[in-house]
Structure formats: structure tokens, C-alpha cells
């Protein structure tokens, strides 16, 4: 797992956050992510995130469910084990629609949850680095990834001048990380203890 260096800026208000996000982007910095206490309308737009493909995946899972249900039931009731139910034809399509519908929903729902976990890199035993504990409470936390050309101190000052109430530099694992740093690194070495 690769460790990366981040500059973290904390904001008290979304009205300060929005212009800051825009300025950071126009200045050419690479925003890793913005952590907010609640869903902020339009933030994805301001950050320049592309539209998610999750719904396309959902559609594919859905039609997989539909075909699974229809092919399964029709094979069972017409080829494998035909039963006479109330004198209905073996190929009794209307009776299968509710089950087909349920299976479509089940496949789409479970598939989308698992896909969402995968693209968010969430799974059992995977650890996530918290850039700031108060991001789940009342603080808007913008995390900027440092590249070779980034001057972290300049960036900190830049964030502070754009309304950040708190800035710091953190080195953290990102991605699929199972809670252990590389051997030559001490755990939590760079992590600052935050007074909530």
C-alpha cells in the first residue's frame, strides 16, 4: 500500500467551503476528497466529479435478475418439473411476473450495495484513515493530495487565506489498507491528535 502526503483544511461553513473549493481547483491543486457532516447539494459539481456509473451497473444487475428469474422459472415449469396448477398452461407468464420483479429488485439492490462498497473501497477489515474526527460532526474537511510540485506550506497558507479555520499536513494510507503501515513506519506517526 502506498502512503501519500495530504494537506487538510477544515472549514466551519459550507458557504466558505464552496468558494474555497473553486479557488483550490483553479489554482491547480488536486483535491483528494471533501468530507462533510451532511450531503451538500452541488458540491460534486463544484469539485468537478464526473457523474457516477453506479446506476448503469444497477441496470445491468437488474436485467441479470430478470433473465435469471425468467429463464430459471420457465425451465423448471416447462422442462424440468411441469406441474398442473389450476389447469393453467405450463408457461404461465403472468404468475411469474411478481417473482421476476422481486428478483430484479434483489439483484439490483444487492449488486449496487456491493459495487458501492467496492468503489468506495469499503469492506470488512479494511481500515480508513480519518483526516479529522469532527468531519462526522460539524466540520467540513477538504483534503488535498500533494504531488511532486506541491509546496505543502504554501498550500496551508493558501487554505487559511480562503477561510480554513484549521490546517495541517498528514501522511496517510489510502485505498485498500488493512490497518498496518509499512514496517519501517511507526503507526500513527504523523497523525495529529485532534481536540474535538
Amino acid at each position: 500500500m502506498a502512503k501519500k502526503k495530504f494537506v487538510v483544511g477544515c472549514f466551519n461553513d459550507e458557504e466558505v467551503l464552496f468558494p474555497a473549493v473553486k479557488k483550490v481547483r483553479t489554482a491547480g491543486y488536486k483535491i483528494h476528497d471533501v468530507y462533510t457532516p451532511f450531503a451538500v447539494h452541488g458540491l460534486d459539481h463544484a469539485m468537478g466529479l464526473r457523474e457516477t456509473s453506479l446506476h448503469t451497473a444497477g441496470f445491468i444487475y437488474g436485467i441479470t435478475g430478470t433473465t435469471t428469474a425468467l429463464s430459471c422459472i420457465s425451465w423448471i415449469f416447462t422442462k424440468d418439473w411441469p406441474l398442473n396448477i389450476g389447469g393453467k398452461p405450463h408457461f404461465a407468464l403472468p404468475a411469474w411476473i411478481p417473482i421476476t420483479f422481486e428478483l430484479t429488485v434483489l439483484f439490483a439492490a444487492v449488486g449496487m450495495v456491493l459495487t458501492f462498497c467496492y468503489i468506495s473501497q469499503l469492506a470488512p477489515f479494511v481500515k480508513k484513515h480519518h483526516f479529522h474526527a469532527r468531519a462526522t460532526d460539524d466540520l467540513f474537511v477538504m483534503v488535498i493530495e500533494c504531488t511532486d510540485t506541491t509546496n505543502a506550506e504554501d498550500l496551508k497558507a493558501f487554505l487559511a487565506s480562503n477561510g480554513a479555520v484549521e490546517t495541517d499536513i498528514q501522511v496517510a494510507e489510502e485505498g485498500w489498507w488493512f490497518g498496518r503501515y509499512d514496517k519501517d513506519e511507526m503507526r500513527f506517526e504523523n497523525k495529529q491528535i485532534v481536540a474535538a
Partner: protein
Amino acid sequence: MASIRLQFEIPGKLKTWSLGLIGVGLVALVFGMITKGFSSDEHEQVHFWGTLMYNTIFWTLVTNASMFFICVTTLAMGGWQQSFRRIPEAISTLVPIFGAITFAVLLYVVLTDKHHIYHWLDTAAVAKDPILTGKSGFLNAKFYIIWTTLTIGFWSFLGWRMRQLSNEADVEAMDHETGLKFIFRNTVRAALFTVWFALTVGSTVPWLWIMSIDAHWYSTMFSWYTFASSFVSGMSLIALWLIYLKNKGYMELTTQEHLHDVGKFMFAFSIFWTYLWFSQYMLIWYANIPEETVYFKHRVQGPYKGIFFLNLIINFLCPLLILMKRSAKRNYTLVTFMAVLIIFGHWIDFYQMVMGSLMKESVELGWLDFGILSFFVGMMIFFVARALASKPLIPKYHPFLKESVIHTV
């Protein structure tokens, strides 16, 4: 608001088109009345009056669905619809006009004892028939006329009250107190309309007007199914006018975001319609009781087979597959196409609801149906354009207008 055009000027072309359509419709109407409506042949009579019935009922319900849309969004404290709320308001001004036509047609059918349309009008047959005797408290001419009068009267009156209140948003800016009172009065009037709507379209009226054609058959779902049909067509009609006005350069505050939400209504209620359609169909198919399957027998296996399944393709498969994508609901061309398709599809749905029971032997979808349709489309265009021109297009002092302006999906 200097750059916003509040006053709609009716384009000459629109007027010509609407008058042309009305003209074509009137020719069809008069010709049909002479050759069919007052002919001595029962079959021709039923054809003519049945055609008038499903067209009048369809267009009354569709225009009334606009007022229902305003009322439910008001009750839900919705803000997003304010920038284009004058469109559904204008459409709903047709309720008294189409309602009066419907009333006249239904009154004629009931008062002249057309028992080939409503079997329960035949008192001698009802007396011998235990099922119809049991229903006679509901299915009798007196109740039919009283309930129809009340229904159309209150739709028109409560809708008019709602529109009157909306005029206050044009007068002057409201302070906080006045705004709160205005919203509260809106809520009360919207609630009154919605309750009456539920008692009529949501339950009794489709049973009375349409379902009772098959006097022995009944389905408690029928009203909801009819409501879903009319509501999804109503939303499509709103979308069409919205796009038309956008094209003419009006409705500056209404954007793709609003169209997206209207598109969602079209999509969602198409699915809702299918849900009700299927729920009604499957239970009857599964139970397979003769007195219930009588409704579907000639529709699924008889001459109406084509229309019956076309209905399902237009009203379910097309909206499902075409309107599902976000980009489709934000695309003016696609929404226009789908709106026209959906309105046509539900018109066909009403056709098979009424004519499928009246003329079981053959499908005679022809000049009369499209002629009467053109009459109603022409009337709709003419009167909606007039109603739009009579008021500012945007209720500029409505307390929720800002919410509509900044609306994003």
C-alpha cells in the same frame, strides 16, 4: 425582473392550428351525429356516443389532473413547481368547459335510456337480475346524475378557488406574515380539492362513468387505474406546454432541472399505471372466475388483442426503457416525443376501456375517433393559450418562487 417576459402573446400560427383542429373535429362530430348518433341503428348509435364518452371523459380527467398536480405539490410544501405553475393552472381552466361537454354527453346517454351503453338503465332487466338489483343503490339514473353534477361542479369550483388565490402572488411583494397566511390558505384550498378528487377520481367516478358499462363486472382497482392513466397524461401535457413555451422564449426561470422532475413524474406514474394494470389483470387471470374474466376475454383473445398489447408497449415498455436515463429526462426532444406518445397511449387505453366493452365484435378505430380527438386537442390548445395569455406567466411574488429558481436535481 426586467428581462423576463411575463405576458404570453398567442402566436398566430397556434391560433390557426387550434381553430383548424376544432374545425376538423366539428365536421367529424356533425357528420358522425347525422350518420351514426341519430341513426336508427343501435350499433351506430353506440359507436357514436361511446366515442364521445371516452373522449370527453379522458380530456376532462387529463385537464383535471393538472389541478391535482398543483394541489398535491402545494400540500407537500413544494417550491420547485412555482416557476411554471401557471401552465397547469391554465390547463385546469378547461375543467369547466370539458366538464360541461362531458356532463351533456352523459346526461343525454342516461336520460334517453341508452341501455345498450349502460345496461343498468334497463329497469326491466335489472328487476330480473339479482346482481344488478344488488347494485341498484349505486347504479341508478338519479344517483348517476346527482353525483356527476356534484363531481364536475366541485372540480370546477374548487379548482377556480385555487386559481383565484394564485392571482394574489402577482399583486405585490409579501412580508413574512402575509406569506405565511398565503401559504396556509393555499394549503386549505388544495386540501379541499384533493379530498374531493380522492372521493371522485380516486374512487367513485370511474366506476360510475366507465366501469358500469360492464354492469355485472367490477374491479375495485379500476378507479386507481383510471386515475393513473389520467395523471400520467396530465403530466405529459404539462411537459408539452412547458417545452412549447420554452421554445417560444418564455419561461426563463424554468430550466432542465424542472423538466427533469416533470419527466420523473411521467416515468414514475407510467410504472405506477403498469403496477395497477397488472394487479388488476393478474388476480383475475389467476382466479379464472367467469364473471371476472368476462372483461378480459375479448380484450386478450378477441379483436381487441392488438390494441390491448399495444397499450402495454406504449404505456409501459417505452417509458420504462426510454425515460429511465437521466439524460433522457433532461432532453427536450425526447421528452416531447415521449409526452406525445404517452398521451396517445392513454387515449388508446381509454378507447379500449369504453369501446372494448361497447363493441366487442370488432375494432372500428377510424375517422370518428380521430376527428373527435382533433376537436378536443384543438379546444385544449385554444383555451390553454387563452388562459396563459390572461395572466402573467410567473407568479413573481410567490413566497416559494426563489426555491423554484434555484431548484437543482
